[in-house]
């Protein structure tokens, strides 16, 4: 009996020792930095995903990109010069090479822009957003390090459209000699990290690229793992088996800090809203119904109570500094919401849900869980608020984070009536307004408004910057009134960071590894 006890104790001790050995490497300074994402990548081919910008722009580079402060700076490009409003000359930075050794030159840039055009024409890839923003006819080679971009329309903010990860510069030999299936998950770029391996469930392994244009990134090895559940991501960070996660719920900041991790709260330029899909439920075409839905939601309470006062409700169509802060968000007013619904002909039915011509004001809401701060919870709060004024959410469905990105793609073809969504920074008013432009890939509502289109066209063709502020404000005021979305707020970003990692948050909340991972302590 005693020997059995000893045997058990020994096994337990061995197990504990083994466990500590297994756990220990996570904290060692020379071990890979483990970053937890909320979903597996849709693709690592930049032209086939909008959802994986953080990873894509860690492996790849675009002609221009945004630095950590949010300024558009040359990347693969060295300079740009307008020849006339439709023709631009771009000089390519000399001496750059791709991860596989191919040179970065005019041929690579022309190949990239041609590939995007061809894929888009064939209905392949996820290029609606990028090519909806940058309306070019073609790119042509001038000399080995010079290209000419020929536009179809004048565009005064051309460089800000070239930061989109979909237009990452690709090595022509590798991408033309290998099948789309192979390159989809074995990318070759010119960015700070080169691809090593990827296995779903195990992670994406990256290694610092010593010939990166800004110098070799200070963190040598990075592993990106998909952990959809916020709770699991937090557990991993607390256990020391991960170094970085985004989206720590405000409630758990203190808990995570007490467990030995740092929580960095930083502003971001990610503007959250609830997209209202056009073309499914007839009520949503009526501006009064959309306004009523905005009035029925108590955004202030969500921001102050659910998010701990970390967000401020606004008409978040455009980012700072172009956002018109004088524009007041819809104040919580359920009575006004009821009036608007009644005026639109939607009157309460026997069960309190409004009806018109035999049609119930019954909608479906697709929400993510963990893609945005408290997204699932906010969706439930909103559903509850709308019920108060007679709008029913018949089916509130939680969708997988990776699936949700595909549902929002192609102008929101995949979701039903409502879906939480966001718009990232373009650092220009024109770029941000693409959110509601008829032909834009970032218009996930399929919303189209003739008056706005006229305003937007005039704004896009205006090269006199002195007029931009006034035009931007006019567009914001008009779209705010039309309420194509449920306006919310710019999301603060809560990063959970292990003690050993030096991290620098970007102004836009993006996590480009080569720019935000500043090294390991000790």
């Amino acid at each position, binding site marked *: 009996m005693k020997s059995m006890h000893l045997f058990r104790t020994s096994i337990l001790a061995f197990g504990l020792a083994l466990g500590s050995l297994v756990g220990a490497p996570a904290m060692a300074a020379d071990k890979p930095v483990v970053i937890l994402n909320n979903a597996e990548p849709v693709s690592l081919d930049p032209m086939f995903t909008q959802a994986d910008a953080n990873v894509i722009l860690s492996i790849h580079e675009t002609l221009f990109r945004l630095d950590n402060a949010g300024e558009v700076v040359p990347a693969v490009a060295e300079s740009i010069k307008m020849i006339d409003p439709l023709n631009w000359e771009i000089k390519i930075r000399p001496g750059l090479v791709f991860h596989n050794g191919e040179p970065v030159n005019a041929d690579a840039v022309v190949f990239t822009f041609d590939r995007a055009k061809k894929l888009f024409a064939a209905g392949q890839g996820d290029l609606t957003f990028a090519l909806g923003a940058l309306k070019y006819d073609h790119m042509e080679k001038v000399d080995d390090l010079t290209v000419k971009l020929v536009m179809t329309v004048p565009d005064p903010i051309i460089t800000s459209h070239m930061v989109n990860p979909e237009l990452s510069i690709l090595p022509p030999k590798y991408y033309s000699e290998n099948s789309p299936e192979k390159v989809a998950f074995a990318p070759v770029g010119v960015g700070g990290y080169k691809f090593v391996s990827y296995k779903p469930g195990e992670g994406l392994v990256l290694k610092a690229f010593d010939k990166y244009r800004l110098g070799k990134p200070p963190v040598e090895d990075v592993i990106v793992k998909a952990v959809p*559940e916020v*709770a699991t991501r937090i557990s991993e960070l607390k256990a020391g088996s991960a170094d970085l996660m985004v989206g720590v719920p405000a409630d758990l900041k*203190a808990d995570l800090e007490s467990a030995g991790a740092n929580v960095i709260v930083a502003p971001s330029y990610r503007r959250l809203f609830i997209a209202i899909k056009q073309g499914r439920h007839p009520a949503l075409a009526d501006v009064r119904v959309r306004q009523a839905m905005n009035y029925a939601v108590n955004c202030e309470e969500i921001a102050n109570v*659910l998010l701990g006062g970390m967000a401020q409700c606004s008409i978040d169509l455009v980012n700072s500094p172009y956002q018109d802060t004088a524009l007041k968000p819809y104040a919580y007013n359920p009575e006004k919401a009821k009036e608007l619904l009644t005026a639109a002909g939607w009157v309460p039915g026997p069960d309190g849900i409004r009806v018109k011509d035999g049609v119930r004001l019954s909608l479906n809401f697709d929400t993510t869980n963990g893609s945005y701060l408290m997204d*699932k919870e906010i969706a*439930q*709060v909103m559903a509850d608020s709308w019920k108060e004024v007679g709008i029913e959410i018949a*089916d*509130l469905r939680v969708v997988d984070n990776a699936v949700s990105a595909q549902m929002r793609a192609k102008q929101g073809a995949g979701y039903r009536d409502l879906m939480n969504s966001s718009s990232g920074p373009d650092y220009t008013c024109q770029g941000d307004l693409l959110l509601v432009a008829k032909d834009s890939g970032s218009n996930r509502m399929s919303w189209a408004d003739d008056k706005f289109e006229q305003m937007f066209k005039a704004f896009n063709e205006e090269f006199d910057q002195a007029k931009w502020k006034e035009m931007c404000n006019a567009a914001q005021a008009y779209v705010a009134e039309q309420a194509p979305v449920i306006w919310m707020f710019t999301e603060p970003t809560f990063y959970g960071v292990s003690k050993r990692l030096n991290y620098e948050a970007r102004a836009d909340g993006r996590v480009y590894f080569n720019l935000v991972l500043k090294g390991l302590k000790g």
Partner: protein
Amino acid sequence: MTEIDPTSENQLAASSAPDAPQPAATTPASRSNRFLPRLLRSKAATISAVIFLVVLVAAVAAPWISPTDPFAIKLIQRLKPPGYMNGAGTTFWLGTDALGRDVLSRIIYGARVSLTVGLSAVVISGTIGLLVGLLSGYFGGLIDDIFMRICDVQLSFPTILLALTIMAVLGSGLDKLILVLGLTGWVQYGRIVRSQVLSLKNDEFVLAARATGERQWRIIFQHILPNIWSPVIVIASFTVASNIVAEASLSFLGVGVPPSVPSWGTMLADGRQYIGVADWLTIPAGLAISLTVLSINILGDWLRDYLDPRLKNLL
């Protein structure tokens, strides 16, 4: 004229054994008279019955006994600790969740969801399995082959994985959940019933019925069926428990009931990330699942023994 199985003599001999099935209607009255005293003789079964009764009453009387509306979101009251902990007494006795909803009310309503799913799915799977087993066992041949191959195919899929896949396609919802669990859980009924029918179909009373020219459906439903209720009831009791766990699992994984519907599985999932700061979100839901499932399983065990004629004098 109905053919008599050539092996019927052996079967007839077997049926004269003391524990051989008897034509129905000889025992129910006396058995029901013995039910409660025998139940009270087992402490575990009695405690389980009390727990199950409490859950049942909670489910049925939820609208009347629930302290507050379980759907009512009050953000200002979010994450309040249980009333017994902070001196607030019966106000939010089990605390509030991340959206300010009363945990106790949601636990009570959660019983309704769990039992609705558990019992309704059993009715569906039991009915399908019973019919498949009766027809397959009685007629044999091609019908038996077809049904049993379908059983084999279904058994080759892990039930929860199959349910997960179907729910992911259909979307969440109580009705869909019941349907999915009902349609994926019939196989064990089918198999057991088939084996029972195979052993009964050549028994004396069945042969006698055949000999008198009774129609086959009357033989199946009036003579064989009453004699196979015992194993069916026992399986049903265990399946209720497994359905409750399946509902909680699917809801935990986010494909069960919609997030606003109070379900023990959803409560566990929602409370998981707060386990370090608000354990009252998970502990009551976890306990509710464990106690309910445990009580049903113990009751099922007791029921199996109670319905087993060989153990009738031991209980």
